[in-house]
């Protein structure tokens, strides 16, 4: 285990950025989001959660796939280059790292998404333990230990010093590259920090949320439940929950006419939108109830059914914080729990 003083972090970033792209949480106009690091970036490692999850680093909100243009009467197609430069995402939290694991299940299985795969291959994740978890957090419910992030490198911020521990080969490589700025450290302080975090986690209101009854076996029972009818009503059909979510992976593919060629790009889509999965004949989910149900059934039933019981929620709590109507996955889980209890 190594450490580096907080005030030396700019030097660390500088060093990493010399030959790699570096994504860090940056405060822009009062909001913290992961962004490309530059010397003038206002890095913010204190804010617990970035507004958007850092999944952009691997699965950007929009990306070009290819460009086609007319060459005389012929049409030329130019595919977009895959990620070929190494990059580091610094400061991801345990839940967000788990989120990437969820995305892997989608994009790295056959047929492999080459754009995503290239980014995964070139990306190194430096995760950070959550110093002060908040009331909206419920990662423990999904078996995530926010005091012990599992990434290429795990770090802890304790008393003005960042403790650094490489966990994978990629992590070792990065550690070697920045070794000049790191000093050896013992783990005592980190253990203390972990205990403190665990103590806080136990106090969080959602920590003991039960997922009992949520898995692939209960598909039709949940699907047909009258509970949805009540739950969805305040939903405004905006895409906030999906766009801040670290695991939502749906996208749409669109064309843009630049006047001298067509750019085909993909961009995040939201199952909350009325034109989600719109087809020539129309849409297979015509009501907001159906769309609302889709999102939670996917996260809590369909996804685990297809992925060995892995839920596609990581309990980051972003949707809890950001939903304009104060709806969220916790309310859904609780509503079913209550219904179950009542019966």
């Amino acid at each position, binding site marked *: 285990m190594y450490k580096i003083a907080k005030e030396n972090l700019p030097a660390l970033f500088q060093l990493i950025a010399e030959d790699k792209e570096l994504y860090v949480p940056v405060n*822009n*106009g*009062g*909001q913290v*989001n992961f962004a490309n690091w530059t010397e003038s970036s206002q890095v913010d490692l204190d804010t*617990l959660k970035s*507004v*958007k999850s850092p999944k952009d680093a691997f699965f950007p*909100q*929009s990306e070009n796939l290819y460009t086609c243009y007319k060459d005389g009467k012929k049409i030329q197609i130019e595919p977009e280059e895959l990620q070929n430069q190494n990059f580091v995402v610094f400061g991801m939290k345990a839940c967000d790292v788990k989120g990437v694991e969820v995305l892997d299940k989608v994009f790295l299985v056959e047929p492999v998404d080459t754009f995503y795969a290239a980014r995964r291959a070139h990306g190194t994740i430096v995760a950070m333990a959550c110093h*002060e*978890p*908040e*009331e*909206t957090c419920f990662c423990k419910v999904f078996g995530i230990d926010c005091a012990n992030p599992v990434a290429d490198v795990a770090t802890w911020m304790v008393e003005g010093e960042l403790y650094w521990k490489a966990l994978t080969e990629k992590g070792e490589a990065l550690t070697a590259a920045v070794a000049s700025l790191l000093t050896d450290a013992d783990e005592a302080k980190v253990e203390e920090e972990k205990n403190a975090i665990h103590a*806080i986690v136990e*106090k*969080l*209101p*959602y920590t003991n949320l039960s997922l009992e009854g949520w898995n692939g076996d209960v598909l039709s029972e949940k699907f047909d439940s009258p509970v949805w009818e*009540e739950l969805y*009503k*305040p939903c*405004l*059909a*905006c*895409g*906030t929950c*999906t*766009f*801040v979510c670290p695991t939502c992976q749906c996208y*749409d593919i*669109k064309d*843009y006419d630049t006047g001298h060629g067509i750019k085909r*790009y993909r*961009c*995040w*889509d*939201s199952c909350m*939108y*009325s*034109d989600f999965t719109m087809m020539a004949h129309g849409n297979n989910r015509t009501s907001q109830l159906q769309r609302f149900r889709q999102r939670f059934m996917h996260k809590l039933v369909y996804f685990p059914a297809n992925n060995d019981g892995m839920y596609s929620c990581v309990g980051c709590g972003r949707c*809890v914080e*950001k939903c*304009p*109507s*104060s*709806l969220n996955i*916790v*309310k859904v889980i*609780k509503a079913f729990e209550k219904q179950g209890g009542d019966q």
Partner: protein
Amino acid sequence: MQELITRAKELLENGTVARVLGWKAGDLPYNPEPAYFTNAEELKDFVYNGFCGANLSKYMIEASKLEGKTLVCLKPCDTYSFNQLLKEHRVDREKAYIVGVGCKGKLNIEKVKSFGIKGIESVFGAEMTDNADTLTFQTIYGEKTCSYAEAMLERCHVCKGKEHVIYDELIGESKDTKDAERFAEVEKIEAMSPEEKFAFFQKELSKCIRCNACRNVCPACSCRKCVFDSTKFDSAQKANVDSFEEKMFHIIRAFHVAGRCTDCGECSRVCPQGIPLHLFNRKFIKDINELYGEFQAGADAETKGPLTNFTFDDAEPSIVANR
């Protein structure tokens, strides 16, 4: 609140209304959600406190299609939105039983959190009856306090007043919480150089994730299908691929609601990225007031909107460069 619940029960029981549209207590002390109640039993979850910022008037579009009347709780500023929707035939007055609820300023939890208050377990001072100047939070990290006024939503600082412009009955006291000039922020931007203006909006809009929360919460954006979702203008977009798109979206959105926007501030309240979206709408309101005479959308349900009206000697567009 108790008065409100008692009255709601009464109206449900005597058949005046078929349901009540209000707020239901959330699982955190600060996240009540808009909800329908159909019987006395359900009403035990009814809540109305400082965190009930949501403007319920837009829900009346759907509620107007339901059988029977809906009792809807509207704060003074929400009633403007209702009137505007009424003007546009989007809601049915006959289907609404409007209870004008008192309002003493609504709270912005993001603001509270920006004061470093986190791990909230409970809140004191946000109830209507508390009449508190200070909010006290019990958190995992100890007791924290902040001023009620400072934790208010932006819109409450420029409060339109205590009057409900449309209602069937009034329950509860209101307080005028205005302590700032409505157009001060707009004026500040107007005074900037073009470069500064551009930089300001570029910075704010670069945060936009096109989640459409602003649009979907907006009572004026009640189109069945938004132009940005349809093929009518070849303008459908789902994400901002280029910085132009967020400008296009926000300018056109503001333009479409110009003269119809009541300045209810919901767009800014719900923006997950804290973009001060009201600055667009308020700019149009300010221009309309200055160029075409004071106009408050939703003040009534009859007056012609400024963009569907004109006078022979309106200002020429060149006034923009000469102001």
